């Protein structure tokens, strides 16, 4: 297991490192810290040649990475890399391919002036193009112990099966309970009927996704279905109780190209209200990955 961490030498980067340590600890994964630096565009005409600035950038990036490595506890293996490309998002996606990463971990928030949790531009670019699950560390995330629970946010659109498969195996692999969450807004008609329908829907899919044999019965017993309601998605998220060591899995929207992420508007709003990290899983990610990973000896995040 390898996780790529998009590192920047600020609070956002430290959020990402903390989350990465936490995720790696539950799974014995190794971390690849990547600082993305921009390619100097030759068409940015200036009165002095660009040569040499690159050296400063690489030197600075190496210093930043040394600081970052010092933040990582000894039990988590980590490597640091400097990579360059046209945009930070593109560079991180390429790094994921280069290291055959199973997840990309970044700090989600920018230092937005007007909103507390604004999705940073790099994060939002990644959420539209990444081909591996992207874990977003919320602002000020400082927990570094292994996860204690995996939540899976379920909509009622196609793709729920793949996401649930992924969530179940993630919970099984990490030996933590699974919680399936349906977020409902009240304008969806009669709330009780809607809640029951959502619960039935979630339970039906959960039953299909859980391992059928006796050996998988233990995690199955720990799986829980919750329906959260509110006037808005944000309110529904607020009403749920969240453990400190919890993450929420969300599938990417149907607009996504196959195997890449596109964050739907609902997921975007969840992100702004959510107090715990969120992992966005590309559509079709797990299925494709299972069939391709047979040649790979490392165990994959989604593999049971």
């Amino acid at each position, binding site marked *: 297991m390898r996780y790529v961490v998009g590192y*920047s*030498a*600020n609070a*956002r*980067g430290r959020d990402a490192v903390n989350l990465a340590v936490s995720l790696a600890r539950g799974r*014995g994964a*190794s971390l690849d810290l990547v600082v993305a*630096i*921009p*390619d*100097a*565009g*030759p*068409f*940015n*005409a*200036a*009165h*002095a*040649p*660009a*040569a*040499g*600035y*690159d*050296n*400063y*950038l*690489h030197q*600075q*990036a*190496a210093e*930043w*990475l*040394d600081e970052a*490595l010092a933040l*990582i506890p*000894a*039990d*988590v*293996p*980590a*490597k*640091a*890399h*400097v*990579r*360059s490309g046209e945009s930070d998002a593109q560079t991180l996606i390429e790094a994921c391919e280069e290291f055959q990463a199973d997840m990309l971990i970044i700090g989600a928030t920018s230092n937005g002036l007007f909103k507390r949790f604004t999705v940073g531009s790099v994060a939002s670019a990644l959420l539209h193009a990444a081909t591996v699950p992207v874990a977003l560390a919320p602002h000020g995330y400082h927990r570094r112990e292994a996860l204690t629970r995996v939540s899976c946010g379920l909509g009622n659109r196609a793709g729920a099966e793949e996401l649930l498969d992924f969530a179940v195996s993630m919970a099984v692999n990490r030996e933590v309970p699974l919680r399936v969450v349906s977020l409902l807004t009240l304008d969806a008609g009669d709330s009780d009927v809607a809640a029951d329908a959502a619960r039935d829907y979630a339970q039906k899919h959960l039953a299909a996704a859980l391992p059928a044999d006796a050996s998988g019965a233990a995690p199955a017993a720990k799986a829980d279905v919750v329906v959260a309601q509110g006037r808005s998605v944000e309110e529904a998220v607020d009403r749920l109780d969240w453990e400190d060591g919890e993450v929420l899995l969300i599938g990417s929207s149907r607009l996504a190209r196959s195997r890449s992420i596109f964050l739907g508007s609902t997921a975007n709003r969840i992100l702004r209200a959510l107090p715990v990290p969120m992992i966005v899983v590309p559509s079709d990610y797990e299925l494709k990955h299972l069939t391709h990973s047979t040649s790979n000896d490392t165990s994959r995040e989604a593999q049971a």
Partner: protein
Amino acid sequence: MSTEHATAKAATHTQDHGLSEKGLKAGSVGLIGAVVIGVSCIAPAYTLTAALGPTVSEVGVHLPAIFLVGFIPMLLVAFGYRELNNAMPDAGTSFTWASRAFGPWLGWMGGWGLIAATIIVLSNLAAVAVDFFYLMLAQLFGNPDLADLTTNLPLNIATTLVFIALACWISYRGMETTKTVQYVLVAFQLLVLGWFAVAAFSHVANGTAFDATAIAPDWFNPFAVESFSAFAAGVSLSIFIYWGWDVTLTMNEETKNPEKTPGRAATVTVLVIVIIYMTVALATLAFAGIGTEGLGAGNPDNQGSIFAVLAGPVMGPFAILMSLAILSSSAASLQSTFVSPARTLLSMGHYKALPHKFGKISPSYKSPSYATIASAVAAAVFYVVTRTLSENALWDTITALGMMICFYYGITALACVWFFRAEAFRGARSFFFKFLAPLLGGVILLVMFVKTAYDSMDPEYGSGSSIGGLGLVFILGMGVILLGVVLMLVMAKLRPEFFKGQVLTRGN
């Protein structure tokens, strides 16, 4: 997995310094791309509107001659610049090279000269952009009063500061002009300048020119310039119009054919630029003459920004294209020019020649954060001071700028001669490029610098602004250099390592 858990921290945390792929993607720029980069660095529409008037005021109809002669020292210095850049590619350019050749003190001043020149050009670029911004509004809404808003001092200063702040912010965010935008900007500039020339000549042919003046061979004779003072002033101004051309020579890895492309691109660029400068200079002189009345190119009121005055009468309703061309190219240059002083400041911070914070790089945008903001503040302060003190701020800043470029290019060229002195006589190529060319270029530029500085003490020099009997251009130019000396002495007290030669060592 279990073995990884057991390994010690030192072994589990590593950095692959060796694997990071450095530098530009090789082979992305072809000949045309390199020429576009060269032309956009020079920004001919902007340099012409800024420098044509002041140069005419010095050399009159011999403008074409001076524009041609002005290229020679630039060419000679650029050869040396290329040698230094190949031997020591560094973001500090003149600062680093002069420090390596002459030691910390001259090196510091070389860096200061570069920073001062680029700061001055930033404030001038912003001011020109603001002039054409209001002019364009006037043309757009058919209301000439809007163009006069730029003469309202508080409004002008406020708008210019907004332009500087915007460009600084874009540069701080690390945003760059893309290839497509640059191609469009350059093509548009050349097209509009060509249009201006054709329109001016047809006015002359139709007898509708303001002051039709017959082109004479004498215009191309630099020796006909009446005095050496005028000649020196003219040459230091025309150094400014070629400033940026040297970038084509220093392009290497980014070109498709590093052996041939930079040389060819530099040649084609200079041909394109000389042709456009000659055509526009001749068209302007033929249409407007050098009279000091009305539209004449010798009229002091026109000299700060000649196209602001002439584009309307020459191009008629299409004058708005000229405004658009100059506004867009100076805005693009404004943003990209921030890179130069910021990187030199960063380099000086890095080598402990300035306080540590100048060496900071933004973790989010990977741009020189503190240095970029410092450049913007300096450009803003320089503009406010000049605008308040001078009757014609644009004119005086351009003259001071020409002087400053001569100063730091002169130092840089001589740094090349001195740095390579051991290999100067190893073959004809070395002799010419590392010794003769930079030596000649450097000496010419420093002579121009001293002569212009001396002449500018005259209160009538430039736009005729003066303080305490000294010309404003002299006060601006010398004031900036003296400020550099003072700051250098302060820095030598604060951070002596650099000045003891412990950071950047002399020689190879």
